[in-house]
């Protein structure tokens, strides 16, 4: 059932991008938000909310920018891979101490780190371009030099493909031994330890996965926007990812995508009808969803549809 929905969604996105070219960029950007929320939802599975995961999008995006500017011949795919790799490495190191914490402190430490990064990116103008950020020239795609239209469409295909793969991977992780243990951390970490498992190790692996996924969103965003700015790592951005993950529910990987859909829809309609109030409406939506659907849309749907 879920596979069907996913493929239909993917097909619609591709068709829309092909026949209505101006929708390509918004769809890619929206999908990167969904991917980032997917990453955040891995931590949500363990009951932990990170208010700083946007830093991994930021790290991969700036890696893409630095490399693209230093090595103009580098291919888009290589850039994406490099960006993700640096994010993963960063998370492996950060995770070593970060995953000792729980609850508010986990949330706040991630926040603190992301704010340090945000501050440094903004201030070290000569290296990072400061608050104006860095521009990225269109790189080659699979060796081909492309003009804007084909480049964006190929990027759309790549983004959708990556989204499907990541969703599938995360969902398999959720159902694996590590995934079950991650969820057990949320409800009874002590018992997990008393069964002989290392909650620290389980969290660390989960943290790496979540950063990897968020890293993909950063690389893709950098390539479609052609620009990276410190805002990519702002705590409010992390908050939006959390928002989307909660909206869709962390019960199933598809939740992040449904959540992103609602998020973008709300953003678009409120920009159209109530410009200047989109944050207000978003905040209001978040509150309503939490009160009405504490397990998110997907949680409610899955109860009724046996997903």
């Amino acid at each position, binding site marked *: 059932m879920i596979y069907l929905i996913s493929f239909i969604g993917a097909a619609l996105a591709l068709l829309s991008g092909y026949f209505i070219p101006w929708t390509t960029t918004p769809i890619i950007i929206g999908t990167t938000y969904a991917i980032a929320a997917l990453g955040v939802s891995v931590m949500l599975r363990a009951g932990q909310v990170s208010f700083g995961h946007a830093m991994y999008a930021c790290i991969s995006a700036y890696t893409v920018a630095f490399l693209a500017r230093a090595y103009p011949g580098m291919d888009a795919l290589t850039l994406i891979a490099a960006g993700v790799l640096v994010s993963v490495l960063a998370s492996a190191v950060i995770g070593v101490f970060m995953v000792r914490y729980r609850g508010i402190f986990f949330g706040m430490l991630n926040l603190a780190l992301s704010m340090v990064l945000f501050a440094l990116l903004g201030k070290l103008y000569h290296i990072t371009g400061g608050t104006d950020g860095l521009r990225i020239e269109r790189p080659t795609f699979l060796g081909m030099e492309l003009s804007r239209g084909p480049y964006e469409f190929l990027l759309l295909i790549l983004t959708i493909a990556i989204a499907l793969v990541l969703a599938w991977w995360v969902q398999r992780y959720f159902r694996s031994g590590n995934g*079950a243990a991650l969820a057990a951390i949320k409800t*009874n970490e002590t*018992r997990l330890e008393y*069964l*002989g*498992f290392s909650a620290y190790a389980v969290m660390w692996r989960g943290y790496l996965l979540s950063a990897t996924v968020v890293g993909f969103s950063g690389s893709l965003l950098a390539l479609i926007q052609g620009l990276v700015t410190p805002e990519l790592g702002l705590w409010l951005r992390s908050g939006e990812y959390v928002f989307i993950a909660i909206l869709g529910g962390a019960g199933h990987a598809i939740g992040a995508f449904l959540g992103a859909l609602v998020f973008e829809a709300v953003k678009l309609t409120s920009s159209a009808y109530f410009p200047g109030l989109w944050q207000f409406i978003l905040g209001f939506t978040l509150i309503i969803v939490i009160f009405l659907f504490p397990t998110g849309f997907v949680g409610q749907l899955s109860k009724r549809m046996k997903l």
Partner: protein
Amino acid sequence: MQPLVKTSGLYLAFGGVVAADNIDFELYSGERLAVIGQNGAGKTTFINICTGYLKPAAGKVYFDGQDITAQAPRKIVRLGMGRSFQLPQLFTEHTVRECIQISAARQNPRLSVFKPLADTVDTNEVDSTLELVGLMQDANVLSSDLPEGKRKLLDVAMALALRPKLIIMDEPTSGVASEDKHGLMQTVMNALEERKVTSWFVEHDVDIVAQYASRVAAWINGAIVADGSPDEVLNDPRIKSEVLGN
């Protein structure tokens, strides 16, 4: 034959209270040990030290010949010591079956990152564990939806699924209606017997102790004051007045 659990000179005090007073203790494979004592006598402290939850100020703990003093609970469990809790400690967002599966997954050297949990455990063994404690028909029920008696059974079953040599049970029948206590204990002890698991349980109910224990140890003020067959200990006048009350 070497004891399964051995402590020598175990000592721990909190504030001014001596919770473990130089305890020397041995437990042998196959025993069904009941631990009795008033609240605050040190029964749970002793368990917490043996299971790695607390560090003793002095003394040593051995499990199956190995020195496990001050090791992490996680490591001690892997040596074969299981535990169940007075307030059942379950994974409240997992089903009964999933709770057992997570325990059973400990048999593998590593937790899977890709294969579904259910595929990494021996289904037959999971099923047989569920049957042993009588939870087969509740296998797909969310653990938090179980009534109290069944929650206690699940708590023990999760420890059982580890294939331990010993299970320590903290008040296995507390919180259960009196008419259900014997049924519950019968089920638990049969299951442990079937799997050849040594049992050590803290109990306040004298009838349960008399019926299911092969040995009784009584705690007063952090020390073991009586240790022997249920007949001996339960009929000991000092124990009757100071521990069991009238």
